[in-house]
Protein backbone atom coordinates (compact mmCIF):
# COMPACT_ATOMS: atom_id res chain seq x y z
CA UNK A 1 0.00 0.00 0.00
CA UNK A 2 2.89 2.31 0.79
CA UNK A 3 4.29 1.65 -2.68
CA UNK A 4 0.97 2.53 -4.20
CA UNK A 5 0.96 5.94 -2.52
CA UNK A 6 4.54 6.67 -3.53
CA UNK A 7 3.78 5.51 -7.05
CA UNK A 8 0.79 7.85 -7.23
CA UNK A 9 2.90 10.84 -6.11
CA UNK A 10 5.63 9.86 -8.51
CA UNK A 11 3.12 9.49 -11.32
CA UNK A 12 1.64 12.93 -10.58
CA UNK A 13 5.14 14.42 -10.48
CA UNK A 14 6.00 12.63 -13.75
CA UNK A 15 2.83 13.92 -15.32
CA UNK A 16 3.70 17.48 -14.31
CA UNK A 17 7.23 17.13 -15.70
CA UNK A 18 5.79 15.70 -18.92
CA UNK A 19 3.45 18.68 -19.30
CA UNK A 20 6.30 21.04 -18.53
CA UNK A 21 8.55 19.42 -21.14
CA UNK A 22 5.74 19.43 -23.72
CA UNK A 23 5.14 23.16 -23.10
CA UNK A 24 8.86 23.78 -23.58
CA UNK A 25 8.73 21.76 -26.77
CA UNK A 26 11.18 19.18 -25.58
CA UNK A 27 8.95 16.23 -26.57
CA UNK A 28 6.68 15.66 -29.51
CA UNK A 29 2.91 15.71 -29.28
CA UNK A 30 2.59 11.99 -30.06
CA UNK A 31 5.09 11.09 -27.39
CA UNK A 32 3.41 13.50 -24.99
CA UNK A 33 -0.02 12.02 -25.66
CA UNK A 34 1.11 8.41 -25.34
CA UNK A 35 3.09 9.02 -22.11
CA UNK A 36 0.30 11.16 -20.63
CA UNK A 37 -2.19 8.43 -21.40
CA UNK A 38 0.00 5.83 -19.68
CA UNK A 39 0.50 8.02 -16.60
CA UNK A 40 -3.15 9.00 -16.45
CA UNK A 41 -4.24 5.33 -16.68
CA UNK A 42 -1.88 4.40 -13.89
CA UNK A 43 -3.17 7.26 -11.71
CA UNK A 44 -6.73 6.26 -12.49
CA UNK A 45 -5.99 2.66 -11.54
CA UNK A 46 -4.50 3.79 -8.25
CA UNK A 47 -7.54 5.95 -7.52
CA UNK A 48 -9.85 3.05 -8.36
CA UNK A 49 -7.96 0.84 -6.00
CA UNK A 50 -8.19 3.52 -3.32
CA UNK A 51 -11.94 3.80 -3.79
CA UNK A 52 -12.35 0.07 -3.57
CA UNK A 53 -10.32 0.09 -0.38
CA UNK A 54 -12.48 2.88 1.02
CA UNK A 55 -15.60 0.93 0.16
CA UNK A 56 -14.12 -2.04 2.01
CA UNK A 57 -13.47 0.14 5.10
CA UNK A 58 -9.79 0.27 4.53
CA UNK A 59 -9.76 3.79 3.34
CA UNK A 60 -6.70 5.00 5.13
CA UNK A 61 -4.48 3.85 2.40
CA UNK A 62 -3.48 7.32 1.54
CA UNK A 63 -1.58 7.88 4.76
CA UNK A 64 2.09 8.61 4.68
CA UNK A 65 4.85 6.30 5.81
CA UNK A 66 5.23 8.22 9.04
CA UNK A 67 1.55 7.79 9.71
CA UNK A 68 1.88 4.12 9.09
CA UNK A 69 4.94 3.96 11.32
CA UNK A 70 3.12 5.82 14.07
CA UNK A 71 0.08 3.65 13.59
CA UNK A 72 2.24 0.59 13.68
CA UNK A 73 3.84 1.74 16.92
CA UNK A 74 0.44 2.53 18.33
CA UNK A 75 -0.78 -0.83 17.24
CA UNK A 76 2.21 -2.42 18.88
CA UNK A 77 1.52 -0.53 22.08
CA UNK A 78 -2.14 -1.49 21.91
CA UNK A 79 -1.18 -5.03 21.10
CA UNK A 80 1.23 -5.14 24.01
CA UNK A 81 -1.44 -3.73 26.25
CA UNK A 82 -3.85 -6.26 24.92
CA UNK A 83 -1.34 -9.02 25.40
CA UNK A 84 -0.74 -7.86 28.91
CA UNK A 85 -4.45 -7.74 29.50
CA UNK A 86 -4.74 -11.15 27.93
CA UNK A 87 -2.03 -12.43 30.19
CA UNK A 88 -3.84 -10.99 33.13
CA UNK A 89 -7.08 -12.35 31.86
CA UNK A 90 -5.61 -15.76 31.24
CA UNK A 91 -4.03 -15.75 34.68
CA UNK A 92 -7.31 -14.81 36.28
CA UNK A 93 -9.03 -17.56 34.29
CA UNK A 94 -6.56 -20.09 35.54
CA UNK A 95 -7.01 -18.82 39.05
CA UNK A 96 -10.74 -18.96 38.59
CA UNK A 97 -10.46 -22.50 37.30
CA UNK A 98 -8.33 -23.43 40.25
CA UNK A 99 -10.83 -21.85 42.58
CA UNK A 100 -13.66 -23.69 40.87
CA UNK A 101 -11.74 -26.94 41.07
CA UNK A 102 -11.00 -26.35 44.72
CA UNK A 103 -14.63 -25.55 45.38
CA UNK A 104 -15.67 -28.70 43.56
CA UNK A 105 -13.15 -30.71 45.53
CA UNK A 106 -14.39 -29.12 48.72
CA UNK A 107 -17.94 -30.01 47.71
CA UNK A 108 -16.96 -33.59 46.96
CA UNK A 109 -15.03 -33.82 50.21
CA UNK A 110 -18.00 -32.39 52.07
CA UNK A 111 -20.34 -34.88 50.42
CA UNK A 112 -17.98 -37.70 51.23
CA UNK A 113 -17.74 -36.56 54.81
CA UNK A 114 -21.51 -36.39 55.09
CA UNK A 115 -21.84 -39.84 53.52
CA UNK A 116 -19.17 -41.31 55.79
CA UNK A 117 -20.81 -39.74 58.83
CA UNK A 118 -24.18 -41.02 57.75
CA UNK A 119 -22.83 -44.52 57.22
CA UNK A 120 -21.10 -44.41 60.58
CA UNK A 121 -24.33 -43.35 62.24
CA UNK A 122 -26.20 -46.11 60.44
CA UNK A 123 -23.52 -48.63 61.34
CA UNK A 124 -23.58 -47.77 65.02
CA UNK A 125 -27.36 -47.62 64.94
CA UNK A 126 -27.35 -51.15 63.52
CA UNK A 127 -24.99 -52.29 66.25
CA UNK A 128 -27.13 -50.61 68.87
CA UNK A 129 -30.18 -52.24 67.34
CA UNK A 130 -28.47 -55.62 67.47
CA UNK A 131 -27.48 -55.10 71.08
CA UNK A 132 -31.02 -54.02 71.82
CA UNK A 133 -32.31 -57.27 70.37
CA UNK A 134 -29.71 -59.25 72.28
CA UNK A 135 -30.61 -57.47 75.48
CA UNK A 136 -34.29 -58.00 74.85
CA UNK A 137 -33.53 -61.67 74.27
CA UNK A 138 -31.58 -61.85 77.52
CA UNK A 139 -34.44 -60.05 79.23
CA UNK A 140 -36.73 -62.75 77.93
CA UNK A 141 -34.31 -65.28 79.34
CA UNK A 142 -34.54 -63.55 82.67
CA UNK A 143 -38.11 -64.86 82.94
CA UNK A 144 -38.01 -67.55 85.60
CA UNK A 145 -38.48 -71.03 84.21
CA UNK A 146 -39.78 -73.95 86.18
CA UNK A 147 -39.55 -77.58 85.16
CA UNK A 148 -41.67 -80.18 86.81
CA UNK A 149 -41.73 -82.82 84.11
CA UNK A 150 -40.45 -86.29 84.86
CA UNK A 151 -39.34 -89.36 83.03
CA UNK A 152 -40.35 -91.67 85.83
CA UNK A 153 -43.46 -93.67 86.10
CA UNK A 154 -43.80 -93.44 89.85
CA UNK A 155 -44.10 -90.29 91.87
CA UNK A 156 -40.92 -89.95 93.82
CA UNK A 157 -40.06 -87.18 96.17
CA UNK A 158 -39.42 -83.73 94.82
CA UNK A 159 -35.97 -82.23 94.98
CA UNK A 160 -34.41 -79.15 93.58
CA UNK A 161 -31.15 -78.69 91.80
CA UNK A 162 -29.70 -76.84 94.72
CA UNK A 163 -30.24 -79.46 97.34
CA UNK A 164 -30.04 -82.82 95.70
CA UNK A 165 -28.50 -86.18 96.58
CA UNK A 166 -26.17 -85.15 99.34
CA UNK A 167 -28.22 -87.22 101.74
CA UNK A 168 -29.06 -90.37 99.87
CA UNK A 169 -30.39 -92.17 102.94
CA UNK A 170 -32.93 -89.48 103.63
CA UNK A 171 -34.07 -89.41 100.06
CA UNK A 172 -34.47 -93.15 99.97
CA UNK A 173 -36.57 -93.09 103.06
CA UNK A 174 -38.77 -90.40 101.66
CA UNK A 175 -39.14 -92.34 98.47
CA UNK A 176 -40.37 -95.35 100.35
CA UNK A 177 -42.90 -93.27 102.14
CA UNK A 178 -44.03 -91.70 98.97
CA UNK A 179 -44.42 -95.01 97.23
CA UNK A 180 -46.42 -96.37 100.14
CA UNK A 181 -48.73 -93.40 100.04
CA UNK A 182 -49.04 -93.83 96.32
CA UNK A 183 -50.07 -97.49 96.65
CA UNK A 184 -52.72 -96.59 99.15
CA UNK A 185 -54.13 -93.97 96.89
CA UNK A 186 -54.21 -96.27 93.92
CA UNK A 187 -55.96 -99.05 95.85
CA UNK A 188 -58.43 -96.54 97.17
CA UNK A 189 -59.47 -95.21 93.84
CA UNK A 190 -59.16 -98.40 91.87
CA UNK A 191 -58.01 -96.49 88.87
CA UNK A 192 -54.79 -96.67 86.85
CA UNK A 193 -51.57 -97.16 88.68
CA UNK A 194 -49.22 -94.42 87.77
CA UNK A 195 -49.41 -90.70 87.93
CA UNK A 196 -46.72 -88.38 86.88
CA UNK A 197 -45.91 -85.44 88.98
CA UNK A 198 -46.87 -82.07 87.73
Amino acid sequence: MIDIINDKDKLIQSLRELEFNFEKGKISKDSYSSQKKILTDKIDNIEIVNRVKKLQGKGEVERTLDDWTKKKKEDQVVQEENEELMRKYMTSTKTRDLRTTKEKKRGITRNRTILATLLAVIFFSGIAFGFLLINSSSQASAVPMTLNQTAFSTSNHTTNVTNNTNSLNTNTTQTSQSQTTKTNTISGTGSGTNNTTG
Partner: protein
Amino acid sequence: MNIYPFLIVTLLSLIVLASGCVSNTNLNQTKTYSQNGIYFVYNGTWENANVSSPNAVAGVGDPNTVNPQTHEPTTFILIQKPNSTLGTDLQTAYNQNYATFFNNTSNQRVSDANITVNNNKAFENVYISTSGGVQTEMRAVWLSQNGQIYVILCGALPSNFENQQKNFNLTINSFKVQ
Protein backbone atom coordinates in the same frame (compact mmCIF):
# COMPACT_ATOMS: atom_id res chain seq x y z
CA MET B 1 -32.93 -35.01 41.05
CA ASN B 2 -30.47 -37.84 41.37
CA ILE B 3 -31.96 -40.55 43.56
CA TYR B 4 -29.09 -43.02 43.36
CA PRO B 5 -27.28 -41.71 46.48
CA PHE B 6 -30.47 -42.13 48.49
CA LEU B 7 -30.96 -45.63 47.14
CA ILE B 8 -27.38 -46.54 48.01
CA VAL B 9 -27.70 -45.11 51.51
CA THR B 10 -30.99 -46.93 52.02
CA LEU B 11 -29.51 -50.18 50.81
CA LEU B 12 -26.48 -49.82 53.04
CA SER B 13 -28.75 -48.99 55.96
CA LEU B 14 -30.76 -52.14 55.42
CA ILE B 15 -27.59 -54.22 55.18
CA VAL B 16 -26.14 -52.77 58.36
CA LEU B 17 -29.39 -53.13 60.25
CA ALA B 18 -29.80 -56.68 58.99
CA SER B 19 -26.27 -57.50 60.11
CA GLY B 20 -27.22 -56.36 63.59
CA CYS B 21 -30.21 -58.65 63.52
CA VAL B 22 -28.24 -61.60 62.20
CA SER B 23 -25.73 -61.28 65.00
CA ASN B 24 -28.52 -62.05 67.44
CA THR B 25 -29.42 -65.32 65.79
CA ASN B 26 -26.09 -67.00 66.13
CA LEU B 27 -27.19 -70.54 66.83
CA ASN B 28 -23.64 -71.78 67.04
CA GLN B 29 -23.23 -70.29 70.49
CA THR B 30 -23.35 -72.81 73.26
CA LYS B 31 -23.29 -72.81 77.00
CA THR B 32 -21.93 -75.37 79.40
CA TYR B 33 -23.43 -76.70 82.56
CA SER B 34 -21.02 -78.02 85.14
CA GLN B 35 -22.66 -78.47 88.51
CA ASN B 36 -23.95 -81.24 90.74
CA GLY B 37 -21.39 -83.68 89.37
CA ILE B 38 -22.45 -83.53 85.76
CA TYR B 39 -21.32 -81.65 82.70
CA PHE B 40 -23.10 -80.97 79.46
CA VAL B 41 -23.34 -78.43 76.70
CA TYR B 42 -26.58 -76.80 75.65
CA ASN B 43 -27.88 -74.19 73.26
CA GLY B 44 -26.46 -70.75 73.89
CA THR B 45 -29.86 -69.09 73.80
CA TRP B 46 -31.27 -71.35 76.47
CA GLU B 47 -31.18 -70.70 80.19
CA ASN B 48 -31.10 -72.65 83.41
CA ALA B 49 -34.44 -73.53 84.88
CA ASN B 50 -35.62 -74.03 88.40
CA VAL B 51 -36.36 -77.70 88.65
CA SER B 52 -39.04 -79.21 90.86
CA SER B 53 -39.10 -82.58 89.16
CA PRO B 54 -38.38 -85.72 91.21
CA ASN B 55 -34.67 -86.46 91.55
CA ALA B 56 -33.80 -83.74 89.10
CA VAL B 57 -30.18 -82.79 88.81
CA ALA B 58 -30.35 -80.00 86.27
CA GLY B 59 -32.69 -78.42 83.81
CA VAL B 60 -32.35 -75.98 80.96
CA GLY B 61 -34.95 -74.56 78.64
CA ASP B 62 -35.67 -72.20 75.81
CA PRO B 63 -36.87 -68.94 77.40
CA ASN B 64 -38.77 -68.06 74.25
CA THR B 65 -41.13 -70.97 74.87
CA VAL B 66 -42.02 -70.17 78.45
CA ASN B 67 -45.68 -70.10 79.32
CA PRO B 68 -46.19 -66.76 81.10
CA GLN B 69 -48.76 -68.25 83.47
CA THR B 70 -47.03 -71.49 84.46
CA HIS B 71 -43.46 -70.36 83.74
CA GLU B 72 -42.90 -73.76 82.16
CA PRO B 73 -40.94 -73.91 78.92
CA THR B 74 -42.30 -76.17 76.23
CA THR B 75 -38.78 -76.79 74.95
CA PHE B 76 -36.46 -78.07 77.64
CA ILE B 77 -33.93 -80.66 78.72
CA LEU B 78 -34.17 -82.19 82.16
CA ILE B 79 -31.53 -84.37 83.79
CA GLN B 80 -32.79 -86.83 86.39
CA LYS B 81 -31.03 -89.40 88.48
CA PRO B 82 -33.50 -91.94 89.81
CA ASN B 83 -32.48 -92.99 93.30
CA SER B 84 -34.71 -95.99 93.19
CA THR B 85 -32.48 -97.55 90.57
CA LEU B 86 -29.40 -97.66 92.75
CA GLY B 87 -27.85 -101.07 92.54
CA THR B 88 -29.80 -102.09 89.47
CA ASP B 89 -28.43 -102.16 85.97
CA LEU B 90 -29.58 -99.81 83.25
CA GLN B 91 -31.61 -102.36 81.37
CA THR B 92 -33.54 -103.37 84.48
CA ALA B 93 -34.22 -99.82 85.57
CA TYR B 94 -35.39 -98.88 82.10
CA ASN B 95 -37.70 -101.87 81.82
CA GLN B 96 -39.12 -101.33 85.28
CA ASN B 97 -39.92 -97.73 84.56
CA TYR B 98 -41.67 -98.30 81.27
CA ALA B 99 -43.45 -101.47 82.34
CA THR B 100 -46.20 -99.33 83.78
CA PHE B 101 -45.40 -95.90 82.37
CA PHE B 102 -47.83 -96.10 79.51
CA ASN B 103 -50.66 -97.39 81.63
CA ASN B 104 -51.26 -93.72 82.21
CA THR B 105 -53.28 -92.68 79.21
CA SER B 106 -51.69 -89.25 79.23
CA ASN B 107 -48.50 -90.88 77.93
CA GLN B 108 -48.55 -92.28 74.40
CA ARG B 109 -45.62 -94.37 73.21
CA VAL B 110 -43.98 -93.28 69.97
CA SER B 111 -40.81 -95.31 69.76
CA ASP B 112 -38.44 -97.40 71.86
CA ALA B 113 -34.84 -98.09 70.86
CA ASN B 114 -31.41 -99.16 72.04
CA ILE B 115 -28.87 -96.52 71.17
CA THR B 116 -25.21 -95.74 71.74
CA VAL B 117 -24.10 -92.54 73.41
CA ASN B 118 -20.35 -91.94 73.31
CA ASN B 119 -19.75 -95.64 72.74
CA ASN B 120 -21.87 -96.51 75.75
CA LYS B 121 -25.07 -98.46 75.66
CA ALA B 122 -28.18 -96.40 76.25
CA PHE B 123 -31.93 -96.60 75.85
CA GLU B 124 -34.19 -94.12 74.21
CA ASN B 125 -37.92 -93.81 74.65
CA VAL B 126 -39.96 -91.30 72.71
CA TYR B 127 -43.50 -90.59 73.79
CA ILE B 128 -46.10 -87.86 73.83
CA SER B 129 -47.21 -86.58 77.20
CA THR B 130 -50.43 -84.64 77.60
CA SER B 131 -50.79 -82.28 80.52
CA GLY B 132 -53.38 -79.57 80.89
CA GLY B 133 -54.52 -80.14 77.35
CA VAL B 134 -51.04 -79.42 76.02
CA GLN B 135 -49.15 -82.15 74.25
CA THR B 136 -45.40 -82.39 74.68
CA GLU B 137 -43.26 -84.84 72.77
CA MET B 138 -40.60 -86.35 75.01
CA ARG B 139 -37.35 -88.07 74.24
CA ALA B 140 -36.01 -89.86 77.32
CA VAL B 141 -32.47 -91.17 77.04
CA TRP B 142 -31.39 -93.52 79.78
CA LEU B 143 -27.66 -93.99 80.24
CA SER B 144 -25.30 -95.13 82.94
CA GLN B 145 -22.04 -93.48 83.89
CA ASN B 146 -19.86 -94.18 86.93
CA GLY B 147 -22.43 -96.65 88.25
CA GLN B 148 -25.16 -94.06 88.26
CA ILE B 149 -28.15 -94.06 85.98
CA TYR B 150 -29.13 -90.75 84.47
CA VAL B 151 -32.14 -89.86 82.41
CA ILE B 152 -31.90 -87.03 79.94
CA LEU B 153 -35.46 -85.99 79.26
CA CYS B 154 -35.80 -83.77 76.22
CA GLY B 155 -39.19 -82.19 75.52
CA ALA B 156 -40.75 -79.94 72.92
CA LEU B 157 -44.06 -79.34 71.25
CA PRO B 158 -44.73 -82.07 68.66
CA SER B 159 -44.63 -79.45 65.91
CA ASN B 160 -41.20 -78.33 67.06
CA PHE B 161 -39.82 -81.65 68.23
CA GLU B 162 -37.85 -82.53 65.11
CA ASN B 163 -36.39 -79.06 64.86
CA GLN B 164 -35.02 -79.37 68.37
CA GLN B 165 -33.21 -82.65 67.78
CA LYS B 166 -29.91 -80.90 67.14
CA ASN B 167 -30.19 -79.14 70.49
CA PHE B 168 -31.14 -82.39 72.20
CA ASN B 169 -28.25 -84.26 70.56
CA LEU B 170 -25.86 -81.49 71.58
CA THR B 171 -26.65 -82.09 75.23
CA ILE B 172 -26.96 -85.88 75.05
CA ASN B 173 -23.64 -86.34 73.27
CA SER B 174 -21.81 -83.95 75.58
CA PHE B 175 -23.24 -85.34 78.82
CA LYS B 176 -20.58 -86.51 81.24
CA VAL B 177 -20.48 -87.45 84.90
CA GLN B 178 -17.66 -85.63 86.63
